[in-house]
């Protein structure tokens, strides 16, 4: 009796652990449906009280559910504050905000897309739109986007993400833009005698400036020229691609099937970017860090130059008490410049988020009205101010009353480029992340010798994997 009891207990333990291990899918599903239930809970009364069609008439009470990401310090409150004028004007509309986190958002969105149970308004990362669209999770907006100005009204690099490459249909409206630009310490450049106006012109002038500024002492602190994160980062892929683009390379050829980033030009871009770390312009300790640690190092005066997004400028203007870095040495002595031009042109990474109408929504017209408001100049400006993200609408992005750093970012977005808008981008990025991480291991000197051959080899194996993914 004992024997079987013990054996079956052991078996049960093994099985249940195995099930919870292999059932990662199921766990995630459960979590996602858990939050679905929340959404359902708020949806249900609205759905019963307002019939399907009555949402069209403007004054019937309607409760919209919005799923957004943590775009700002207080994501839900900041969002509600942005749409407050709209809600005041439309007292019949109520909005319930659910904030997803980027880590679990994909599972929740796909669960919603496949089950049909989800929000009304759905924020999607720009590279997710083609994938969710191909699952049938979001509505086509072809005949509606004219209401918000259409393609001409938005930054082209972000507008490209609202449809699947090579197809006509439009699935979203760009909400805000994320771009990369150079942050540099004006005081360090001054002390090293580097003219910032010409330093960021091209690759040669950039490297020469970094060499000059390397090791300069400001406020008693010796600075490394450049701070850059290596493999333990969320942005490994976004960090590298601007350099591949600037060398004249690209992720895929125009057919979106042929992998090209491992060609000579792609290699040149990767070699240039990694050589900055290899040639002593970067404190190698930073190769183990992530973007936010690099940002705080820059704030503390450990490096003279970093590459970051618009949120950092906002952060330097936010009081310490509110979680900002306005007390840091860099806060008063920084400026923003576009990434330097390479032999193949001048490029920076542009991403961001799009607003979409969830296909399972019962209040599609009311949802579209809200998206229209969020695309208005008033709301675009308000949300950019609150969140520190760049507006996607050109008229707001290029407005004369933007502060000087945002203007520099608006300038940088002119060189913006986004990834191919293909449904397989998610898996592609995962594969790239892994192999680019190996490249950083090589650069750090813990995985073989650093030379063109070893980097080429790693890029080739990345290309083989990406090829299998985009051709599936």
């Amino acid at each position: 009796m004992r024997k079987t009891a013990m054996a079956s207990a052991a078996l049960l333990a093994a099985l249940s652990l195995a099930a919870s291990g292999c059932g990662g899918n199921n766990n995630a599903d459960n979590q996602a449906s858990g939050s679905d239930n929340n959404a359902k809970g708020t949806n249900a009364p609205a759905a019963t009280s307002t019939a399907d069609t009555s949402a069209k008439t403007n004054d019937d009470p309607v409760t919209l559910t919005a799923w957004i990401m943590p775009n700002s310090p207080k994501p839900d409150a900041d969002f509600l504050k942005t749409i407050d004028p709209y809600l005041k004007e439309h007292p019949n509309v109520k909005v319930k905000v659910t904030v997803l986190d980027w880590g679990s958002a994909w599972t929740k969105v796909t669960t919603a897309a496949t089950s049909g149970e989800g929000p009304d308004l759905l924020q999607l990362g720009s590279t997710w739109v083609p994938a969710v669209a191909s699952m049938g999770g979001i509505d086509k907006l072809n005949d509606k986007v004219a209401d918000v100005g259409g393609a001409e009204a938005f930054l082209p690099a972000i507008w490209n993400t609202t449809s699947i490459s090579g197809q006509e249909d439009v699935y979203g409206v760009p909400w805000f833009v994320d771009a990369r630009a150079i942050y540099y310490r004006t005081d360090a450049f001054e002390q090293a005698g580097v003219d910032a106006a010409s330093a960021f012109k091209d690759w040669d002038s950039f490297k020469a400036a970094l060499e000059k500024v390397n090791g300069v002492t400001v406020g008693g602190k010796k600075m490394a020229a450049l701070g850059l994160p290596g493999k333990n980062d969320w942005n490994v892929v976004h960090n590298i691609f601007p350099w591949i683009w600037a060398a004249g390379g690209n992720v895929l050829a125009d057919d979106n099937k042929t992998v090209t980033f491992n060609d000579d030009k792609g290699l040149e871009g990767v070699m240039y970017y990694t050589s900055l770390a290899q040639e002593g312009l970067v404190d190698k300790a930073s190769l183990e860090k992530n973007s936010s640690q690099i940002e705080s190092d820059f704030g503390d005066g450990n490096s003279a130059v970093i590459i970051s997004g618009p949120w950092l400028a906002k952060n330097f203007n936010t009081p310490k008490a509110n979680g900002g870095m306005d007390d840091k040495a860099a806060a008063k002595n920084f400026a923003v410049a576009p990434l330097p031009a390479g032999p193949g042109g001048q490029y920076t990474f542009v991403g961001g988020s799009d607003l979409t109408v969830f296909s399972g929504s019962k209040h599609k017209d009311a949802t579209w009205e809200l998206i229209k408001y969020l695309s208005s100049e008033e709301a675009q400006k308000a949300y950019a101010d609150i969140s520190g993200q760049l507006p996607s609408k050109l008229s707001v992005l290029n407005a004369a009353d933007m502060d000087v750093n945002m203007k520099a970012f608006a300038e940088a977005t002119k060189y913006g480029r986004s990834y191919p808008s293909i449904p397989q981008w998610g898996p592609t990025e995962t594969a790239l992340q892994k192999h680019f991480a190996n490249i950083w291991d090589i650069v750090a000197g813990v995985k073989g010798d650093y030379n063109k051959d070893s980097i080429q080899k790693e890029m080739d194996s990345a290309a083989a994997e990406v090829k299998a993914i985009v051709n599936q």
Partner: protein
Amino acid sequence: MGLQRDTDHRMKGAPGAKVRWTKRVREHKFAYMLVLPTLIFMMMVHLLPMIQGIWMSLLNLNQFTLAKYLKAPFVGLSNYWGLLFDTDNPVRQGLNFAVRNTAIYAVVVTVGVMVMGLLMAILMNRDFPGRGIARTAMLLPWVIPSYVVGVLWGFMWQQNGVINYLLVDVLHLMHDKPFWLMGPNTIWAIIIPTIWRGWPFLMVIFLAGLQTIPDDIYEAATIDGAHKLRQFWHITLPMLKPIIAVQLLFQIINNVYSYNIVSTMFGNGAGYPGEWGDLLMTALTRQSFGYWAFGSGSAASLMLMVAMLMVVGVWYRTFRTELNAQ
């Protein structure tokens, strides 16, 4: 109670199995009704997802077929075939490293926590002033959530972090500050925090075991002239053997399915732990969720489950006598 009466019936020579089963249910109707909800619940949370997982492993379930979910195209065993024999299979990529790392990690961590736990249990079993406080303090690493452990050690392992400071600047054990979160050292960067967090639990279990060993056995051994080490070898260890056996199994299973610490230590789940840091669970998560290859992912998980069942089988054969001795 019910158990006892069942054996009674059997001894009397109850007729066919079917009759015995229905009779048993009838006799203990109330008890079975009490158990029923739990049984149904357990089926729902354990059995059904497992069956679903097995079914999914036979489907071509990826981002393009996800909308059909369980009605995705049936492909038989080709997911398994791809994982075992197709070197171009994206889910397979990098699994070799993960298998190697998981084997090293599971063995070293299991041995580490058990030895450390036993040693500390023996120390804590002695009478000394402040024992209660010491025991409680020792439990601290165990109550820290593994997520936090990963993040904290992630900071400490950095090249200019506190660990290198201690090793190089204070203790002068090394010349240069090594990278811990990149390259081959990564395996130690994940093993050591896991042991650090894991041993207090073993200490508690072993402490409880030690207290069931009657003092008079030790007294008799002392009178017979056995010194402490002999007593440990011939009394303590054999008496603890059933506990050691069970904990050994739990630790192996736990460590093979380890995820949290590694996941949070490298870019909070976004980063790639590297060829010396990737474990089976982080690899499977990335390769199936990151690649949206859910069919292959289920197949890989199921193969892992079968492998673990074999480990359980070996374990049971090894410790059969100890487990039945009680």
